[in-house]
């Protein structure tokens, strides 16, 4: 490996999409960056995720970070190679009945008031743009600026760009511990002025005290049916499924892939690190998909897999310094929004590290909030 002689300014632990994005921002800011991962690029939660670039309004803070991140993705889009499978398909938040359509209208106001383009579709307009959806549905909110991409491809691209900017990636390097000013790899301490813990759901193993738990999800992908699904489609109840830390929930969420395949989600479970397919949850998730899109019943599924979202108690990621240990920074806990918010996270983190003024207020994502919250409650 080159660059061993000169210790890096920053070690990024984790080569998922968040770590890759952080490496790119830090390298572009002029730091000597070393990226370490126990596996290879984008092999963890990144590989298991859906790949939505979506503005979400579960909270004001979530809206700010996702809207900022989607803007960064759209700036990047023209330079993304085909392997990233970027598709500016937009999102449809569908309303099943009149009450949900009211909620859609409120959502519309919230989005447009904050400068995110959105459009309310009635039932007929929705049926026209997604003919495979069940009819009648009350309508939908179309968010045309949302997109989807292939997360492992995007992570690999971001890391390659980081390496072009001088970063060094070492795969197959498990970090055993993070110490002040160093990481421990294979029993040897590797000095680094800054350590960025971007280890996703595994981040608490290296930085004890981070309140991140694995939240399991299932996904299924079909064979190629071009045109069957044209937008990312999400039921309005999705936010609720994502928000409540209940033991188990499913919500209708499908995505068209560039290949013509349909990616079907989503499920949420708190069962630790058990990767086995939960057939009851899978069945309910697929049933929900068929409920909204009956034509899917005849579509052939090629693969089903599970993954683990790094979930935090307040549904916001941890971005910033970890003041319990000198030189340690955190970029983790993105739950199911890490693909979207990777770019915003990385820019914010680099701004904080280099003393630039961030474009959005970083305070809501400060990792130390979880400690203060714990102490308040304690």
């Amino acid at each position, binding site marked *: 490996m080159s660059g061993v002689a000169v210790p890096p300014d920053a070690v990024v632990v984790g080569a998922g999409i968040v770590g890759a994005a952080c490496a790119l921002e830090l390298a572009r800011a002029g730091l000597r960056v070393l990226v370490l991962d126990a596996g*290879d690029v*984008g*092999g963890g939660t990144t*590989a298991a995720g859906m790949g939505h670039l979506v503005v979400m309004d579960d909270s004001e803070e979530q809206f700010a970070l996702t809207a900022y991140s989607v803007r960064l993705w759209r700036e990047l889009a023209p330079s993304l190679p085909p*392997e990233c499978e970027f598709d500016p398909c937009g999102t449809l938040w569908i309303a099943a009945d009149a009450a949900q359509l009211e909620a859609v209208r409120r959502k519309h106001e919230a989005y447009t008031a904050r400068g995110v383009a959105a459009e309310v579709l009635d039932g007929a307009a929705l049926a026209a743009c997604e003919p495979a959806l069940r009819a009648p549905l009350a309508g939908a909110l179309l968010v045309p600026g949302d997109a989807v991409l292939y997360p*492992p*491809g995007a992570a*690999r691209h971001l890391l390659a760009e980081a390496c072009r900017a001088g970063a060094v990636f070492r795969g197959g390097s498990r970090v055993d511990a993070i110490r002040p000013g160093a990481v421990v790899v294979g029993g040897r301490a590797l000095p680094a002025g800054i350590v960025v813990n971007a280890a996703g759901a595994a981040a608490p193993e290296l930085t004890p005290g981070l309140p991140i738990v694995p939240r399991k999800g299932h996904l*299924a992908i*079909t*064979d190629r049916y071009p045109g069957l699904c044209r937008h990312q489609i999400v039921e309005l109840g999705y936010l609720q499924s994502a928000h409540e830390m209940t033991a188990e929930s499913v919500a209708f969420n499908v995505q068209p892939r560039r290949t013509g395949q349909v990616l*079907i989600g989503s499920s949420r479970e708190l069962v630790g690190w058990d990767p086995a*397919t939960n*057939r*009851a949850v*899978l*069945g*309910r998730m*697929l*049933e929900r*998909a*068929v409920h909204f899109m009956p034509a*899917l*019943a*005849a*579509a*052939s*599924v*090629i*693969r*089903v*897999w599970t993954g683990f979202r790094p979930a935090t108690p307040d549904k916001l990621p941890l971005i910033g310094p970890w003041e319990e240990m000198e030189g340690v920074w955190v970029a983790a806990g993105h739950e199911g929004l890490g693909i979207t918010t990777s770019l915003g996270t990385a820019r914010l983190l680099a701004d904080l590290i280099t003393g630039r003024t961030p474009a959005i207020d970083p305070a809501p994502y400060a990792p130390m909030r979880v400690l203060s919250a714990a102490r308040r409650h304690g």
Partner: protein
Amino acid sequence: MAETAPRRVTADVAIVGAGPAGIAAAVRAAESGARVVVLDEAPRPGGQIWRHTTRGTLPRGARRWLERLDASGAQVLSGASVVDADGPRLLAQWRGEPLVVSAERIILATGARELFLPFPGWTLPGVVGVGGAQALLKAGMPVAGRRVVVAGSGPLLLAVAAALAGAGAHVAVVAEQAPAAAVRRFAAGLWRRPAKLWQAARYRAGVPRARHRPGVWVTRADGDTTVREVTLTDGRRTWTVPCDLLAVGYGLVPATELPRLLGCRIERGRVHVDEYQRTSEPAILCAGEPTGIAGAHAALVQGQIAACAALDRPAEATSLLAARDAWRRFAARLEATFAPRDELRTLADADTVVCRCEDVTLGRIDASWGSRAAKRYTRAGMGPCQGRICGAALQYLFDWTPDRVRVPVAPATVGTLVHAAALNTEPQDPS
């Protein structure tokens, strides 16, 4: 809950696969009074070796087994594809509908498939497997007057060449990649297995015009919309043969996806079984090619042993054990004789498609990756064959271990997988 409950079948013994191993297991178990259900993907029982459209075309031994199967009382569900399994329960897709099978024991008789090694031109229409040519011929593919090259490795080459010639094809050459000396030693050893010798003699007689060339292999195929010419080499000399059908395959590999999904221990690519065909998993037995490629005779013996063990009457299988072990020794010699030569690793160039489902070329794949990273980086193995074709090739080319098996173990409709949870619930009492 799913709107409509899936159809359920309960049995003492459920058998997956209706080739010789599955048929023998079904016959033995059903004749002993057990309730038996057999699931098979093909339109008719018989497996690859006894594939047929009318039974009259089959050898007498095969006909007899099929007649016994008919009379045995075993329920045979043809066209049923097993897509998920857990413990002694199976989820199948049968005639487009989900079917849940609950059994006391499962006998996996999932057979084998051909090993395909990529070379330039192998994706052209008109390039088929050796077993593929045989299957298509039995299913009614016309070959009269066509110029055919049969190539690759293994005893199947001559059998298929004979069948093609018998159907009116002109077999230009049978190119066996194994060295002449190895093939001669193997043939000499056949004296110890009269059934095989008789078979071999018959095949040879069936290809009067063919030139059987050991130590020769295909390096490329050319054509615009379909194959027109095949390039052969013996390692020193290279020549071309015009043809409009190339049948090429490098022997068989055990089909172990379903056993792996069920957690059965796999050793050197084969399902590990004990003396009575029992796998490492309770209630799961395995017979035939998944336990090691040994052919139909071995499969028939193993299927019967598995049936006896499945019914907890292993003593009844004692008389069969010696025959099974003899076939195992035969299988070892088969494997040693026809192992693909190293030169076959170098046939594909950077532009050769390796993953046919996703059109991933060899040049895009890095030998250091492994199968999971190759999936993520290139989509190799992400298509509907679930990596069955490219996985075996990449394993051979780069010594990669195959990625782990997931649900569904074969593509299944969303409408079928909605019922996956039925594998983990008791069947409802119909009363």
